[in-house]
């Protein structure tokens, strides 16, 4: 593995709310090398979006964050406000889910894409910012006249592509994409994935891609990390993890999206019973045991930690 652009060590994130504290991320470590791509998968409430937001310190101020986050050589958790501003947009930029809410309804999308360039002085004039905006819109497959459109004049797919163009405005080293294609049609999703692929190859963009759709991640990323109840429960090369998962939870996620043509899934949708645990009220032992088809007595006692399950792979399950 090359030099990591992003390195996370023993990250714990706890929300303090009325009525108690909620541990959303419980000891996550991960690395992404420069130019590499990591897919982070898991259900709603597993902590994946909290983790993504913490990387640029976008969490509410009262949130307790411990551990280490190193991005492009900088210690994100101890940065001064000025240092943090320098990291955001240029070292790392984030594409949020829900394109309608992430855009300002009373500003044209062109102005919104240009804004970070002017604030961060990556464009030295209004004209330069405008030219770069048109270029970025072209990259995401939107025609030049779209720059003067307001968000409500665009379709959901177009708005999502505006968000991607905006995230790319300051030429970030790391792109954090949180469910960027979930609301999109199949063909638009394919366009977005192809764009990300081009960017990875052209300019060594490093990618952290977050979604619950394992098939998309496997397609778009070199490595996969599966999160459950605030922890990574399996990690390894994307195809290996998808095709031959070690953890029973990963197997269930992988089976959720059938391979078309595979006889075993025809007229036989595969799901996982039960619901994900509430972060404030985790089951004893392995937090997956109430839903696990393979659970044994030992699973109720101790929470397993990640252990080697193959070359470059690890899983947190006592059966591994």
């Amino acid at each position: 593995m090359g030099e990591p652009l992003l390195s996370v060590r023993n990250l714990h994130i706890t929300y303090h709310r009325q009525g108690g504290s909620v541990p959303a991320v419980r000891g996550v470590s991960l690395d992404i090398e420069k130019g590499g791509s990591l897919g982070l998968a898991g259900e709603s409430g597993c902590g994946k979006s909290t983790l993504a937001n913490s990387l640029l310190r976008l969490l509410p101020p009262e949130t307790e964050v411990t551990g280490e986050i190193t991005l492009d050589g900088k210690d994100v958790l101890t940065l001064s406000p000025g240092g943090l501003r320098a990291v955001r947009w240029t070292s790392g930029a984030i594409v949020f889910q829900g394109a309608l809410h992430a855009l300002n309804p009373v500003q044209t999308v062109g102005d919104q894409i240009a804004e970070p360039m002017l604030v961060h002085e990556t464009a030295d004039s209004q004209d330069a910012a405008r030219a770069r905006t048109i270029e970025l819109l072209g990259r995401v497959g939107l025609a030049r006249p779209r720059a003067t459109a307001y968000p409500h004049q665009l379709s959901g797919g177009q708005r999502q592509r505006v968000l991607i163009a905006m995230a790319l405005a300051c030429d970030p080293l790391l792109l954090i994409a949180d469910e960027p294609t979930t609301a999109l049609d199949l063909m638009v999703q394919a366009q977005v994935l192809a764009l990300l692929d081009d960017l990875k190859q052209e300019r060594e963009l490093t990618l952290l891609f977050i979604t619950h759709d394992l098939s998309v991640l496997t397609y778009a990323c070199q490595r996969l990390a599966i999160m459950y109840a605030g922890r990574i429960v399996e990690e390894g090369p994307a195809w290996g993890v998808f095709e031959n998962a070690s953890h029973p939870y990963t197997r269930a996620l992988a089976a959720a999206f059938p391979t078309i043509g595979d006889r075993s899934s025809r007229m036989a949708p595969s799901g996982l019973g039960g619901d994900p645990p509430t972060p404030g009220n985790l089951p004893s032992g392995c937090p997956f045991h109430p839903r696990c088809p393979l659970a044994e007595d030992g699973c109720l006692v101790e929470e397993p930690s990640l252990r080697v399950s193959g070359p470059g792979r690890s899983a947190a399950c006592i059966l591994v």
Partner: protein
Amino acid sequence: MHPGVTPLVEIEDLHVDFGPARAVDGASLHVDPGEVLALVGESGSGKTTLIRAIQGLQKPTSGSILVEGKPIDAKTKKAIQTIFQNPAVQMVFQDPTGALNPRQTIYEIVAEGLRIQGQPDDEAAKVGQALSRAGLRPPERFFPMYPHDISGGQRQRVVIAGAMIMEPRLLLADEPVASLDASIRGEILALMRHLVDETDLSILVVTHDLGLAWNIADRVAVMYLGRIVETGPTEQILSDPQHPYTKALLSVVPETEEREQQILVGEIPDPTRIPSGCRFHPRCPLLQSGTLAPDLAARCPVDDPGPLAVGALVGAACWAVA
């Protein structure tokens, strides 16, 4: 349609115009009793307008829709009234959180359809049975709960219970699992298939998810710019598609790794400006490949291959398909 079977829904040459926009432009479709039909297409293909017309929420410009042999009467009344006036057709929406009233209990939500029709004596029994059939057991436990007390997957089960309590013949499901977690998706799809298998319920499911069709659909109809451009049994369409549009859609499903991707450029055209000739020709990878015989290639931009024959079980609206 299958000989000897009277279709549950028969749509013939349906047109729905919104001013200059031809949202549905000559669509013909049928749903047989006891089958799941997947209506597949991109945003803007007219899928949603088509199912609104089946519910009587959208008055067709021309063409006919028969449900159980009777024409659908498009009322201009409030949507909710129209839906409950025709209990044979019920709807399951994409986002269960948005579809449920946060201030009503699960019991009240599921009982609402019955109450609009006139409250029956055995209401509690019917609500219990509907919840239980939707996999929420024991049902009494859910009666006093509110939507925020239950998970996303359970909410979609409540939506399904609220539809099934009306004992419908047809369930219209608009992207029923698109907003759900991957783990829950399979459970909801299994429930839908189970309801069809155990009764003579039919489901028309609108989706852009071809894996969903593979999981539960008997037949697939592919819609593009207001028309059905290909239809056939699921296995045939998904393993050997004929229309270049269907081929392109299949090629970009992330799982189908071995196929060469055919990523279409841009989005579906504006329905106010439906292209001349074959409506797909400006985006058609087959036409752009230059491999078509010159007489065919000359034909695509000029001649409309026309809609599929009414009642067709298999077919593709493409000049290059023999």
